[in-house]
């Protein structure tokens, strides 16, 4: 067990290092300095600016400095908003984005599983078709389209919810709905198909023969086994929710990380882009680890680190 986690940790660090290195050199391969665009500063000021941000040093030295800073948890200053550091921005944006992402994931998982289970139990019935139609539509409609639709219908035509911003629970409903439909649909489809498979297994028949209540059969015997494939996709779903927050935060004017990220892209604020990318990647890698752990928890037969027989 311990060797597995050590191996896992090492490979996580390597992946993260590759991402850091990749982003660093990508960002620094962009031609031109960030200062010679709009404001025509004079030669001396520009020299000083470059010296201040260490841009006059050789690339490898800059890279070494950047790594050193990163290890200390410092993601560097913002170039465009000179009074702020990337840490400031993330510190302000992350709690909001985390709230949005966490609730979205929660809504998607719960409603997706319920939808999938009901569809599987009413296989080929009306409810099954209805649930699966909802799921296909949920997969097909991009989150930003869903967001605009929701705003148009539930905020403009029928002003039930506020149009934008992030203040009260009422403000959160539309963004979470818009972001959750896609992942919910994927979870619903997966749950349905793996539930259908599990329900034909012998141990379900045994449970029925023992006279267990249907509720107990579904939740204790079937669902737990059916959830494995769902857990597998949680990592990539988290990734898609994460990238989804960029547009959703932009559309609903939510002051989260995604908004800073998109703004920094539009302003070409390279340190911010770099810092946010690295932060996002770290979160994602951590999510993938959590998924692995959840796997072992749900199915004790899977011993992490043992050579799994396929």
């Amino acid at each position, binding site marked *: 067990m311990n060797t597995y986690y050590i191996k896992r940790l090492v490979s996580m660090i390597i992946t993260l290092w590759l991402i850091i290195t990749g982003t660093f050199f990508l960002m620094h391969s962009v031609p031109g300095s960030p200062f010679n665009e709009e404001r025509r500063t004079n030669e001396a000021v520009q020299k000083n600016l470059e010296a201040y941000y260490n841009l006059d040093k050789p690339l490898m030295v800059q890279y070494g400095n950047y790594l050193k800073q990163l290890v200390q948890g410092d993601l560097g200053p913002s170039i465009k908003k000179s009074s702020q550091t990337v840490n400031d921005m993330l510190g302000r944006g992350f709690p909001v984005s985390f709230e949005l992402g966490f609730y979205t994931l929660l809504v998607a998982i719960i409603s997706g599983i319920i939808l999938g289970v009901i569809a599987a139990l009413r296989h080929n019935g009306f409810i099954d078709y209805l649930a699966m139609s909802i799921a296909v539509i949920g997969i097909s409609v991009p989150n930003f389209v869903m967001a*605009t639709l929701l705003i148009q219908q539930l905020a403009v035509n029928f002003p039930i919810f506020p*149009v934008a911003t992030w203040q009260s629970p009422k403000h959160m409903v539309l963004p979470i709905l818009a972001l959750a439909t896609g992942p919910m649909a994927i979870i619903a489809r997966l749950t349905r198909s793996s539930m259908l498979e599990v329900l034909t297994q012998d141990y379900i028949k045994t449970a029925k023969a023992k006279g267990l209540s249907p509720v107990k059969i579904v939740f204790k015997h079937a669902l737990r086994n059916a959830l494995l494939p769902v857990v597998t996709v949680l990592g990539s779903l988290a990734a898609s929710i994460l990238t989804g927050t960029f547009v959703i935060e932009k*559309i609903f004017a939510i002051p989260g990380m995604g908004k800073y990220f*998109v703004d920094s892209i539009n302003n070409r604020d390279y340190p911010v882009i770099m810092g946010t990318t690295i932060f996002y990647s770290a979160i994602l890698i951590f999510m993938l680890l959590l998924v692995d752990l959840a796997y072992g928890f749900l199915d004790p037969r899977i011993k992490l680190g043992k050579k799994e027989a396929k």
Partner: protein
Amino acid sequence: MELRKQETLNISPDIPDEWFTPKEKNIKQAETVVRPSLSYWKDSWHRLLKNKLAMAGLVFLVFLAVFAIFGPIISPHTVEKQTLLDQNLPPSGKYWFGTDDLGRDVFTRTAYGARISLFVGLMAALIDFVIGVTYGGIAGYKGGRVDNLMMRFVEILYGLPYLLVVILVMVVIGPGLTTIILALSITGWVGMARIVRGQVLQIKNYEFVLASKTFGTKTSRIIRKNLLPNTMGPIIVQMTLTIPSAIFAEAFLSFIGLGIQAPHASWGVMANDGLSTILSGYWWRLFFPTLFISLTMFAFNVLGDGLQDALDPKLRR
């Protein structure tokens, strides 16, 4: 002969003898098969035809292709032409889908957006196919240490958040159609490589491959002629699912301002423009691009699902 007739007579005397003439044996006909033999592809095609939803998707895609090719041609307006007197007009006989805030025809722009979307989707799928199949094929066929090394690399790429990488690349090379396709291809082929590798790993141990090897067939020929045709099913399914994700990625990038740039039109750009006017009631500016994005994604998804069912040999009847 005589004996058998006797027997039947004994069992049921009411039935006349003529009913029980034995069928003549025809040795020649015994070997003919009544049902015409169906190849794997024909069989799959028939199964796909029966899937109404998938066929609806296919029909819509054909319609979309026609719309993309001929839409800008039959339209009396051009994509970039601004008629400032005709700002924000609702759909009418002159402007079928209305106009935007610069007086540009939404119909033509939607059709042009269909071109971009389909082009991006198809190109991304094609590049994924070429790189993914080659990479996965080699890794799966070689096996052992080569496979280990190649797959380690794939795993690292697989762990990267797809859209984040794409965004990063777009920031560096700058927006545009070619860069979108390039950025999508950088990590897009990984899924395909994994699928092909898994399939090849399984199939290469079958007897017909061994037979080929025994005859001294070259490796490249074995991969091309023996292994790939047998992995075509999953490959095609993967491709039909790559296309909508590429289309989504393009719309997403254009929506956040990193994709297609003005004055060109793309559904993502149009949706983003339309969003700002949502409060002023110009619904057509948002409605048409988003409708087309959603329908296209829907069509590709149901077609992919249908193909998955149709191409699965386990479901063959």
